[in-house]
């Protein structure tokens, strides 16, 4: 379990993990690390990881584009309270938690993972029909992948950046998250991953 957690941590710098991390990171930053969206992100990522391990669904083509639109919408709703005081109702913990969970869940389904030793064993076990036996390892792996995001969220929560700084931080997160979602909708995100992969060779 610890090895799976650590392998996921080490995989976070790799291009193939970008799609798993960027949208949830944007969601957590946009909500300033509030508890509900942070918890929703972790739950969404773990459940998404389980579905990924089950290998019964993967979003591509039109379905990928459609979820890209939905995730962009979810990130827009999460971003709104940062930029306008009229959207108070969007600060509802339940709503933000659900939106963040949906973003992380979708990201896990878009994910084309880096299959190291530990993830390889997890996926091999799941492929053998022992999905239940694979879930603890997959949970540890997804929590490892999300650990840096949790750290960022908790740091934002604790440090409480001033509004002016938050506008910049939130603006950057919104541009990154929405921009990446737009690339998914345009089915061009693999170009970025391809370029980054080639650089790292």
């Amino acid at each position: 379990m610890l090895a799976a957690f650590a392998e996921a941590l080490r995989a976070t710098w790799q291009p193939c993990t970008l799609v798993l991390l960027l949208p949830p990171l944007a969601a957590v930053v946009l909500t300033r690390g509030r508890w509900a969206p942070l918890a929703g992100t972790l739950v969404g990522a773990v459940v998404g990881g389980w579905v990924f391990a089950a290998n019964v669904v993967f979003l591509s083509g039109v379905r990928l584009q459609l979820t890209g639109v939905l995730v962009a919408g979810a990130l827009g709703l999460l971003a709104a309270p940062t930029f306008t005081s009229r959207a108070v109702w969007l600060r509802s913990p339940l709503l933000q938690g659900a939106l963040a969970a949906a973003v992380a869940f979708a990201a896990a389904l878009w994910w084309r993972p880096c299959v190291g030793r530990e993830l390889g064993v997890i996926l091999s076990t799941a492929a053998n029909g022992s999905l239940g036996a694979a879930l603890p390892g997959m949970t540890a792996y997804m929590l490892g992948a999300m650990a840096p995001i949790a750290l960022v969220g908790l740091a934002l929560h604790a440090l409480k950046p001033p509004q002016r700084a938050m506008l910049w931080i939130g603006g950057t997160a919104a541009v990154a998250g929405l921009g990446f979602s737009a690339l998914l909708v345009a089915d061009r995100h693999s170009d970025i991953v391809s370029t980054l992969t080639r650089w790292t060779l």
Partner: protein
Amino acid sequence: MTSSRTIAGIGAGVVGVAIVAALAATGSGTDDAPATAATVDTPNNETVAPAPPSSSSLSPTPSSAQATTAPSIDLPNRGVHPEFREIDGWLQSDVASLEELRGKVVAVQFWTFGCHNCTATLPHMQALYENYGGDNFEIVGIHAPEFDWEADVGNIENAAADLGVTWPIVLDTNKRTFHYWQEGPTGHWPRIYLLDRDGNIRYDHIGEGRYDEIDTAVQALLAEPA
């Protein structure tokens, strides 16, 4: 509000320590690095049912091409391998189909040269080839590119030379075989299947690692009667 911030601060500290501790406890090397997964819109329903044997059932033995007793490992028969689908030819090969390799134990590895995890397995594959290659054992690398620049045959040939891949390579440019062999909508690189002398899939592993287990499985298959 303040207590919430305090808890978040403590939480950040705990998560930070957990990250450092996990990396320290397991080593921070990158040799486990990435491989990737590919997907198709519609899952195939073919018969490959991957199943790595339980590590608890293993008793790895030293590498030896002359092994005469079967090492202890459970290698269930998963049936004859699927056929190749719409491949674009072979490189570095005197054969043009897996059927021509009947009578040999065959390691079929799905890989692509831009995949870090795939290249990380190559030293082990080279060791397998050196130890067992010949009349009884063959490796077939099915090159299934993830990105366009990995599909160029010249790039594949150059990469094979640079990486020391001397065994036969199947060009699976459109990944038809890649997805046909691997159940479900997601396929993975690297993935190794071991075929017995009759072409049955007897072992399957996704990702890096399990090198001792793979070695043991090869020995066990070689020790089976022809």
